């Protein structure tokens, strides 16, 4: 298939349709409103359903209903709206319902700004709602990867019966890049014998539920969920690494920040510095093991994020205190430039080329 130039937010919608998603429930919020705009236009053409809900709270609960009834379903929002969706996300995780949730992050806290940020890392990877649950969290770095991960996300959601969050930001949502829709990623949703479709008098009722009033049963359910998350940790880690085995400094960055870091790396390499990159593609499960391959004599790991240091916690867990960790971040919707990132790297590396 030939390449088309698409805005990230529109690519989300196109990828969802290509992945067989036919249901979208959402509420407008900058910088992701092109997602509902695109799907309100395109879903009816393929016999799908678009509903603009009265709130993000209602939207995510519509997702809960639609997913429970067996639909391949998407919702999208940006940080304050994702905060509102946490109630439903916890219920989806508890009732083990598949869906894809897109978060095009913006600056916070509160109403914050509408400019790009990565301040929902904790919310996404630690569970923003109540209870011990995990989402599969995918972090695309460019629009093509956004398309690929949205399509993969639907498959993973169905495979694990778990909500998947695609964590982007205002930049990837708003920017245009060429994309290609890869045929091999298209898969039909599997049979869902657990879904509510009406008993037809032929089976016992199916019940979509996260309530267990007996503590023993709820603990058992939690053990089951934890075993599932463990399986994700074993099978679903995705990471890109560059030159980490003999770098004097390794960057850790994800999403759009990682591509800005790549430009900084090119600058530093021109100057003769040996630098590498670990770019987690899955934020849960986190690629802790990738850090074991870092040059043990490297001077440090520089985590770069558009927040005050959230993924930094996972980097610290990964290196177990064996390698010094450094941080460079911009907040409030400010996007770090390659020059300032390179400056910080030079500061850590000193004269050591």
């Amino acid at each position, binding site marked *: 298939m030939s390449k088309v*130039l698409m805005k990230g937010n529109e690519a989300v919608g196109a990828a969802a349709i290509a992945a067989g998603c036919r249901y979208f429930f959402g509420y407008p919020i900058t*910088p992701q409103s092109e997602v509902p705009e695109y799907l309100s236009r395109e879903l009816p053409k393929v016999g799908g359903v678009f509903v603009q809900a009265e709130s993000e709270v209602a939207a995510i609960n519509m997702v809960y209903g639609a997913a429970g009834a067996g639909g391949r379903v998407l919702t999208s929002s940006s940080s304050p709206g994702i905060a509102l969706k946490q109630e439903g996300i916890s219920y989806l995780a508890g009732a083990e319902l598949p869906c894809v949730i897109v978060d095009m992050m913006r600056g916070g806290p509160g109403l914050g700004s509408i400019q790009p940020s990565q301040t929902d890392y904790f919310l996404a990877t630690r569970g923003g709602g109540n209870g011990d649950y995990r989402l599969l969290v995918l972090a695309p770095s460019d629009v093509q990867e956004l398309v690929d991960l949205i399509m993969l996300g639907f498959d993973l959601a169905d495979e694990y019966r778990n909500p998947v969050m695609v964590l982007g930001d205002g930049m990837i949502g708003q*920017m245009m*890049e*060429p994309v290609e829709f890869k045929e091999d990623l298209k898969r039909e949703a599997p049979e869902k014998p657990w879904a509510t479709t009406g008993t037809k008098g032929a089976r016992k009722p199916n019940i979509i539920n996260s309530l267990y009033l007996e503590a023993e049963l709820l603990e058992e359910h939690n053990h089951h969920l934890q075993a599932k998350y463990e399986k994700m940790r074993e099978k679903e880690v995705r990471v890109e690494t560059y030159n980490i085995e003999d770098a004097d400094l390794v960057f850790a960055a994800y999403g759009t920040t990682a591509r800005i870091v790549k*430009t900084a790396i090119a600058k530093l390499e021109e100057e003769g510095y040996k630098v590498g990159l670990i770019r987690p593609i899955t934020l849960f499960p986190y690629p802790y093991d990738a850090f074991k391959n870092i040059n043990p004599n490297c001077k440090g790991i520089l985590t770069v994020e558009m927040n005050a240091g959230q993924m930094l916690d996972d980097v610290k867990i990964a290196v177990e205190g064996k390698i010094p960790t450094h941080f460079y971040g911009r907040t409030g919707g400010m996007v770090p*430039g*390659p020059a300032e990132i390179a400056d910080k790297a030079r500061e850590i590396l000193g004269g050591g080329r």
Partner: protein
Amino acid sequence: MEERIIIAGFGGQGVMAIGQMLTYAGMIEGRKVSWLPSYGPEMRGGTANCNVIISDKPVGSPLVEEATSVIILNKPSLDKFEGNVVKGGNLFINTSLIDRKSTRDDINVYYIPANDIATELGNPKVTNMVMLGAYLEVTKVVSLESIYEAYGKVFGESKLHLLPINKEAMERGAKLVREQIKVNA
């Protein structure tokens, strides 16, 4: 080769559109491209801008800090982005709306009365195309054929009947900078 472009002006002057045309044309020619808009309240009446990268290598940061070319359609944008042009880079100024000269002496500056030319052509909406024509004449980053193909992609098949006047606007912009290049030589 990597061309990093900032295009800036008032919302409604078509700065986003010519950025998309360049990006599309770059893609048609098999280059790596990205288009990044400013977004938010400034789109409604304030200053709008977009960053375009056309490169032989995969695009890293889509954000343009060190621009090889800057295309400016209004005065606030000149004040904001004049400093972003790299030494030896190009700055295109719409003199119809900007009454000051560039203060830089280490870059190539082109002065184009784009609104006046568009008005002469009978369609003030093609101001952006005059600037685009001037830019392409100087940089030759993509071919005119690719730009014409991109026009249909950006504006849709229904606007193809307006392609001739847009071509004319681009040609006028190109002609003007050819003369300026001659004078400077």
